[in-house]
């Protein structure tokens, strides 16, 4: 079940660590692992890992419980749409089988190559967060394997504290074995999209607000525009086409075979790309019909696109700030990064609806911005500066993207961390389940 350490990283390719990867075939295998780890006399310490689509170090540790073989569908209620499946099943597999039957996942992140376990552990959000909330809010229940080896059922009514700690809990409460997800009936899988061009940040925020009733909304922001054009964006609004056509998102497309020299991504190439993208001709009156795959997962058509950032990888910086400070905070973040000469190839802005009861869930009512920066030493001080701006405005960073936030920043922005830490101690999870991230954040 286990092997020699191999070097491992997640989507951002930073950091890289040596890990022993265990690939259990069943809950019993994990129980055995928890009881018989030869690693040290202190017992097992490691973390669950799904598809490694988190950007930083949340799925990294010296021992990894890989859920690749826990990949069975367990039950499906064709009338209720409740799908029970093991934690290693990918959202891609779910969509592949259920979209053609008229069902869709209630929440999907920007890539479909994530596991159900990972989607729960990060309590992921999609383009419909302002209406539908997070992935965890659409679970009927889940089964969690604790440090003691015991398997417990959790839901909003049964073991609810554990449930709310596990959704968004970054694998730090135990290993999620399986979950029951309430799928959603859709009138058609394609999306009718309208694109609005906005000239600055104020305008895009106004347009988000004016379109809160639209199910899907997301904006792509030109992070290098400044002055009066600061924050200019293209806002994409979408609703499922009501045409009764159902097609699963398709894979294929192209692949980046190896790491490209990262100097290709510099402020000039990024600036040029962003300017061209913003100026591309659009007709904001006309709706465009876009296949689900291209609408929800545009990046999935370029396999291994993370290699474009070179061998040293990149960091994604995603933060959320409350509505009232959104404009001020985002303007300062943009001007700070632009002044530091750091561009982000893709910057994505999204309106969030209210937060939920999950202890470490990221979303709060407000706006979230995600920016990708290629790794370089001078990046870290700038990100520290961005942290200060975000904290000053009552915001926080997304743990699924994080590889460098300090313990202090974490504690100040996730007020329920202490409750979470206490629960971990009670469960013995503090000994058994640790990632590079949890250690860095002081758990």
């Amino acid at each position, binding site marked *: *079940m*286990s*092997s*020699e350490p*191999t070097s491992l990283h997640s989507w951002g390719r930073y950091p890289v660590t040596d890990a022993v990867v265990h*690939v259990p*075939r*069943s809950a019993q295998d994990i129980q055995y692992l928890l009881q018989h780890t030869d690693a040290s006399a202190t017992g097992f310490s490691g973390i669950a890992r799904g598809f490694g689509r988190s950007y930083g170090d949340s799925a990294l540790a010296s021992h990894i419980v890989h859920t690749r*073989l826990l990949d*069975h*569908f*367990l*039950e*499906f209620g064709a009338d209720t749409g409740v799908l029970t499946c093991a934690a290693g099943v990918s959202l891609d597999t779910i969509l592949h*089988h259920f979209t053609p039957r008229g069902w869709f996942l209630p929440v999907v992140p920007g890539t479909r190559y994530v596991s159900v376990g990972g989607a729960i552990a990060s309590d992921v959000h999609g383009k419909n967060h302002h209406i539908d909330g997070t992935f965890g809010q659409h679970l009927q229940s889940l089964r969690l394997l604790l440090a003691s080896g015991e398997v417990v059922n959790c839901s909003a009514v049964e073991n609810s504290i554990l449930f709310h700690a596990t959704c968004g809990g970054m694998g730090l409460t135990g290993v999620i074995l399986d979950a029951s997800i309430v799928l959603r009936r859709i009138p058609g899988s394609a999306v009718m999209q309208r694109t609005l061009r906005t000239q600055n940040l104020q305008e895009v925020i106004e347009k988000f607000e004016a379109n809160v009733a639209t199910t899907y909304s997301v904006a792509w922001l030109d992070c290098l525009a400044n002055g009066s054009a600061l924050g200019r964006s293209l806002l994409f609004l979408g609703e499922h086409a009501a045409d009764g056509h159902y097609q699963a998102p398709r894979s294929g497309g192209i692949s980046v075979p190896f790491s490209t020299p990262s100097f290709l991504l510099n402020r000039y190439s990024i600036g040029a790309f962003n300017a061209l993208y913003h100026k591309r001709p659009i007709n904001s009156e006309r709706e465009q019909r876009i296949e689900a795959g291209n609408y929800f997962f545009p990046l999935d058509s370029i396999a291994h696109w993370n290699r474009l950032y070179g061998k040293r990888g990149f960091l994604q910086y995603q933060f959320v700030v409350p509505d009232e400070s959104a404009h001020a905070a985002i303007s300062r973040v943009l001007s700070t990064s632009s002044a530091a000469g750091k561009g982000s190839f893709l910057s994505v802005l999204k309106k969030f609806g209210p937060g939920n009861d999950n202890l470490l869930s990221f979303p709060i009512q407000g706006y979230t911005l995600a920016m990708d920066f290629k790794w370089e030493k001078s990046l870290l001080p700038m990100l520290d500066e961005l942290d200060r701006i975000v904290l000053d405005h009552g915001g926080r960073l997304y743990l699924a993207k994080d590889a460098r936030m300090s313990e202090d920043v974490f504690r100040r922005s996730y007020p329920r961390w202490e409750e979470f830490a206490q629960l971990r101690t009670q469960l013995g999870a503090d000994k058994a389940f640790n990632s590079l991230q949890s250690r860095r954040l002081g758990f």
Partner: protein
Amino acid sequence: MLKNILVVGANSAIAKSVSRLYAEEHCRLYLLARNEEELALQKQDLLIRGASEVDYSVFDVNNFSLHDAIVDQVLDSLGSIDLAILCHGSLPDQALCAENFDAALKEFNTNALSVISLLTSLANHMSIQRCGCIAVITSVAGDRGRQSNYIYGAAKGMVSLYLQGLRGRLHPSGIHVVDIRPGFVDTPMTHTFKKGALWASPEQVAECIVNGIRKKKHTIYAPWFWRVIMMIVCSVPEVIFKRLKF
């Protein structure tokens, strides 16, 4: 189109992926493998993926005396077999087998003789049907004996040769025989190996298998580039090859 499918060694990672592809085509599957819990899980999974019916029995391929009975049981359930695909196998500890014949014999039983025994029974039943397909997962390791892995290679090679002969024998009865030779596949069998660029996933290999069977290939290298690699490996003169440690 294939309808009734027998999968032996059904809990193997490659077999599981193959069964899933056939489930999507609404086939009826009969699974044979050792671990009942995993079989039950697979049954449920395959039904949700679209299989029209799934049955299974617990079966250890090294119980040769049960082979006839199990084939009867499968035929009772499926009626006829459109495809029998044999996927079980084990990767020997070469060093142990070099010293201990009992260990080597066990490997020959699992990887070769069990296949031959099962095919004896299956071939006789299927030739009465006068249609159908027999597919066996062998390995590129059977293309040439290497000092690091020749017990496995010899067993797989034996099956490949056997299949060549069987193919000729069954051709008049309309039975197609396929030899599937995967290269490196990332499965529990190879979990402890360091993985590199040549490695494929079980899902990729399963697609090669299902496509190859559909196209009535005789020998499937999975993925295809192993055909080229093995051509090169086989063309190295023995004087040089015998000095190679791999």
